[in-house]
């Protein structure tokens, strides 16, 4: 379709200048609104929160992750699991219908017989399959890389549970009472490790990390994968860490050492 030449000719000078003014304003918007010389709103909004301080909101500057050193993880120790259950108000049951946000698993090298123990939970992928398959948009990734379920929109279809290669998600089968104020849980919705998002937002460590350190193992390191100066980034840069199911290219936020 070609533009109508008559309508263009009829346009008044006033309308033109109004449009020009708008364009200038829009250009200023694109360039970033200047608050003071050198300070833009976008920079304030994206300022990375440091560990130990309450954050003003999830920011894509940080990417929260964990590095699990399986050589430090003690076989038979379930302190991280217990801490998770306590923090999030889970029953602690291990039936197929019970919610398990974190599990301890034992792996064995078949030829040498060497056994190792490690915790498995939501790997907080950068490319989460659970988010891809969710029909309602309830399964989502926060700006800071934490993968969560919005239970307000979850319809309990469990596609995400099938899509997850780590079996990390659980479905709540029975009505819940006495939930934790920070951790709403309800029947008919899917849930998984939240990386203790309510604690992270306050500048605290996830419950499993604290419990592991308290038990003297310090096998779980929590930190910002995007910051090259963080302890977790330095260790990932200097030791050979692995992602589980690396071949799926999910870029997991939880990395493992010694497997």
């Amino acid at each position, binding site marked *: 379709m070609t533009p109508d030449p008559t309508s263009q000719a009829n346009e008044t000078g006033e309308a033109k200048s109004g449009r020009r003014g708008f364009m200038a304003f829009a250009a200023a918007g694109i360039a970033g609104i200047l608050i003071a010389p050198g300070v833009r709103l976008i920079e304030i909004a994206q300022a990375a929160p440091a560990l130990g301080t309450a954050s*003003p909101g999830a920011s894509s500057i940080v990417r929260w992750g964990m590095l699990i050193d399986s050589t430090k993880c003690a076989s038979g120790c379930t302190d991280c699991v217990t801490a998770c259950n306590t923090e999030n108000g889970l029953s602690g049951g291990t039936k197929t219908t019970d919610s398990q946000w974190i599990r301890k698993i034992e792996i064995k090298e078949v030829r040498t017989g060497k056994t190792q123990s490690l915790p498995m939970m939501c790997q907080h992928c950068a490319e989460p399959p659970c988010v891809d398959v969710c029909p309602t948009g309830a399964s989502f990734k926060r700006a800071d890389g934490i993968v969560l379920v919005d239970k*307000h929109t979850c319809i309990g279809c469990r596609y995400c549970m099938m899509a997850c290669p780590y079996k990390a998600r659980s479905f709540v089968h029975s009505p819940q009472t006495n939930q934790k*104020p920070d951790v709403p849980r309800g029947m008919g919705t899917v849930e998984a490790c939240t990386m203790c998002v309510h604690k992270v937002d306050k500048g605290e460590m996830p419950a499993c990390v604290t419990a592991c350190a308290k038990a003297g193992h310090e096998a779980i390191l929590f930190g910002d994968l995007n910051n090259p100066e963080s302890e977790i980034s330095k260790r990932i840069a200097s030791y050979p860490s692995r992602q589980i199911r690396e071949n799926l290219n999910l870029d997991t936020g939880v990395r493992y050492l010694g497997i």
Partner: protein
Amino acid sequence: MAPLVFLLGLLIGGAVYAGDASSVRVPQPVVESARGGQCVEDPAFMRRNHMKLLKHQRDDTLRGGVRTGKYSLKECIDCHASKTTDSVAATETNFCQSCHNYAAVKIDCFECHTNKPQVKP
């Protein structure tokens, strides 16, 4: 004509009754007094708009990680929990439940969220 006059009578009668709270014929919901002092907004505004405020902020909190908002369900509960049942929805006289029963609106919040305050008074 007669039905119209009757209807008009009803309307006027209703207006008169609405104007005087002490002489209402319909039973009013029992609203328990809150623990704290002032609500975050005017009570009349909250009665109409609390659901909008909560719905708006829940997305900011859950998806944006902003936990400093003014309208948090947790704080509603902390302030409005009953002194006897320590809950906002355990019995029919509790704060949320009484009004929702009266208005015949089901509360879904407490299917997932706890109805008890975080800090025990």
